[in-house]
């Protein structure tokens, strides 16, 4: 799932064309704040109990009472979307974190481990790349059994090679950068150079990468949910809602459109924020 590769390309290639926050950035920020609220205090912003079943109220279209309508079991979709935020984001965040940590480990091995290790790790990354994302995820799930945790690990694993490649590139370019060289010329020791220059400069872009990755991880987790390998009921995870709702697309579009909208908006908002963060933190020209 190395779209991260190109996302960094996209992110890092986005120079400071505009400095002041645009409307898009403000909207994205607003949406992320809404997501945060939905994660921390879902009860405050959802009018109904997300798992309250009422078979008689099933399939109600959006109305003033049920903003996003009700699902096949009469549950309020808006409340479920809000309740699902934490699960979905948790999957997105953990998967990204797993991918990043693995990627960091591989990247550091390759970036610092000398020629042989670099070669080995590079081949490893290539091997992992040769398993396209979903394929790797499928294998992991088949081995470890389905469920949200496995899905998270699977998505994380399959994003790892992408991160590893970026991190390695980052480390190598920093290691050979003029400022690391000038620190050597001054007489600074390797440990100091590592902690003062290399790691901080390599890690800062990772945060941005992470923001960009979360949205994609949510999308991938949703795909696993469609294959029936994701979150378990009655958890109101977006991907699960999406795939459960799509059965009824012909008769009750709102079941699948609103969770889909959340996924799309989350990805857009995090990407927009990630990009603006890149622009703001990029000390490089």
């Amino acid at each position: 799932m190395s779209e991260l590769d190109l996302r960094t390309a996209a992110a890092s290639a986005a120079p400071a064309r505009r400095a002041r926050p645009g409307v898009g950035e403000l909207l994205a920020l607003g949406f992320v704040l809404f997501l945060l609220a939905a994660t921390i205090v879902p009860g405050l912003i959802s009018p109904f109990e997300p798992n309250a079943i009422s078979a008689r109220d099933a399939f109600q279209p959006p109305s003033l009472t049920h903003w996003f309508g009700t699902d096949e079991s009469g549950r309020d979709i808006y409340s479920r979307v809000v309740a699902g935020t934490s699960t979905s984001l948790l999957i997105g965040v953990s998967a990204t974190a797993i991918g990043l940590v693995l990627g960091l480990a591989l990247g550091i091995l390759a970036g610092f481990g000398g020629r042989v290790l670099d070669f080995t790790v590079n081949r490893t990354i290539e091997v992992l790349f040769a398993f396209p994302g979903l394929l790797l995820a499928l294998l992991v799930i088949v081995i470890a059994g389905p469920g949200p945790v496995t899905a998270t690990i699977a998505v994380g694993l399959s994003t790892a090679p992408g991160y590893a490649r970026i991190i390695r590139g980052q480390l190598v370019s920093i290691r050979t950068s003029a400022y690391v060289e000038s620190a050597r010329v001054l007489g600074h020791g390797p440990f100091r150079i590592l902690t003062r220059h290399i790691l901080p400069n390599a890690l800062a872009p990772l945060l941005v990468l992470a923001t960009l990755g979360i949205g994609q991880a949510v999308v991938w987790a949703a795909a696993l949910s469609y294959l029936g390998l994701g979150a378990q009921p009655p958890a109101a995870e977006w991907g699960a809602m999406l795939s459960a709702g799509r059965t009824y697309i012909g008769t009750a579009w709102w079941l699948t459109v609103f969770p889909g909208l959340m996924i799309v908006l989350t990805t857009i908002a995090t990407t927009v924020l990630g990009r603006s963060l890149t622009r703001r933190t990029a000390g490089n020209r």
Partner: protein
Amino acid sequence: MTHILDVDQLTVSFGDTTVVRDLSFAIGQGECVAIVGESGSGKSVTARALLGLAGRDSQVSASMLTLSGRDLARATERDWRGVRGSRVGLVLQDALGSLDPLRPIGREIGDALRLHSRLSAEQARTRVIELLTLVGMPDPERAMSQRSGELSGGLRQRALIAAAIALDPPFLIADEPTTALDVTIQARILDLLASIKDRGTGILLISHDLAVVSAIADRVLVMKDGRFVETGDTRTLLENPREEYTRRLIAAVPTDKPRRTPLVPSETMAPAPKTVPMAVQDASPPVVLSASGLVKTYRAPAGRFRAVDDVSLHLVRGETLGLVGESGSGKTTVARLILALTDADAGDVLLDEEPFSALRERERRPFRRRIGAIYQDSLSSFDPRLTVRRILDDAVALAPPDDRSTVGELLDAVGLPQSVATTRPLYLSGGQRQRVSIARALASRPEILICDEPVSALDVTVQAQVLDLLDRLQAERGLSYLFISHDLGVIRHMSDRVAVMKDGRIVETGHATRVFDDPQHPYTARLIADAPRLAAPR
């Protein structure tokens, strides 16, 4: 003389900012007019405005803008397109960037023909070869199918000129056409422009360096803050500058300025002492650094390639050794070998007669602070996350504990305001960055500074300030400099002794005055002959 270009009250603004104000000038057939000014003075914007390329958000107005008889003051984009290429050509700095790296030269040159003429493919091809021959491209047939990256800098610039004059436009704009080129190549390009001028083409030449333009410009327009401060015939202007600003520009050119004369006629900065305490008084000053028999080979596509071939040099306390050579001659590799950033294949570097390059990195580290370095691209040598204060603090920590400057003192020493301490180098100007870079080099109390093209990326006036600063610091602190540059003017002005490098070898070495006045090696002689001087056109 008929005017090819008539401009009256040209004003260019971006939003609320006016960058060019009320310019009026004319250029005649076969005349070369130069606009000279520092970066940001508005000279490039002026040039582009004459092509209708000032930029999407610009507002351009002029009471008159006539190009070979066509009124372009109210030209539409379509009108402009008819003019560009056919009536006016443009040559930009940095031909590597100015030619599409993905397209063959022949296609790039042929574009103007394709757009403005009805030549058949075969005719166009013949014309392109003709043009390439005209600009002095060796083997034009071959060059046609090459891409810009496959050519050397000089050939690229020739190709770019060929593209600009493809349709023989009566007017040519050359924006810094020789900046970043080696002196010998620079001279050839200027010759080429001169020959184009002689064919009757009017040329507008844009540069920050008076010495460069003085070679071919008939008239000079000195520009500052979007206005002309002084205009006039080149000889008059050089010999009798009326304006203070023009005088500063002239003074800043280091060529032929004696060693240790300030290049900035400064009111604020005290003139550096004429005599140097140690270097001159001490009968035989100690050798602080010596390198002997340095060899470095690199793997190249076709076999191995000796970047540095048996180079020996030494540096005594308080002196400047100038290392001059064209790009690719191995200067920078020598610097890296001396700094022990690259392992030499053979040869030794001694610091105070003690082994330096032979040490293991761990053993060498304590000695590193004694050799400082400043680079051409100072920005990239700073950690982008750190502020100036932290950059300097990091370096101060390496100085001997009993001999440490504060950040404030360092900033003072390089003539920077204290407020700079809290900013990051990205937000400083080129001159300020180079000062920070010098301050950092000084912070660890070194005895030697390796200066690798420290002023090559700077405007002449800023270059003058930095050179003055280096001079002053050397005098105050008894530093020894290994000063690397491709610019003979700078080298001559800065060096006590000079070593000339060519193809990895030192071909000539000796006291600066001797080398420059009486070059022994033909290569040195050619370099000196080609260096631009402040002089009216031939």
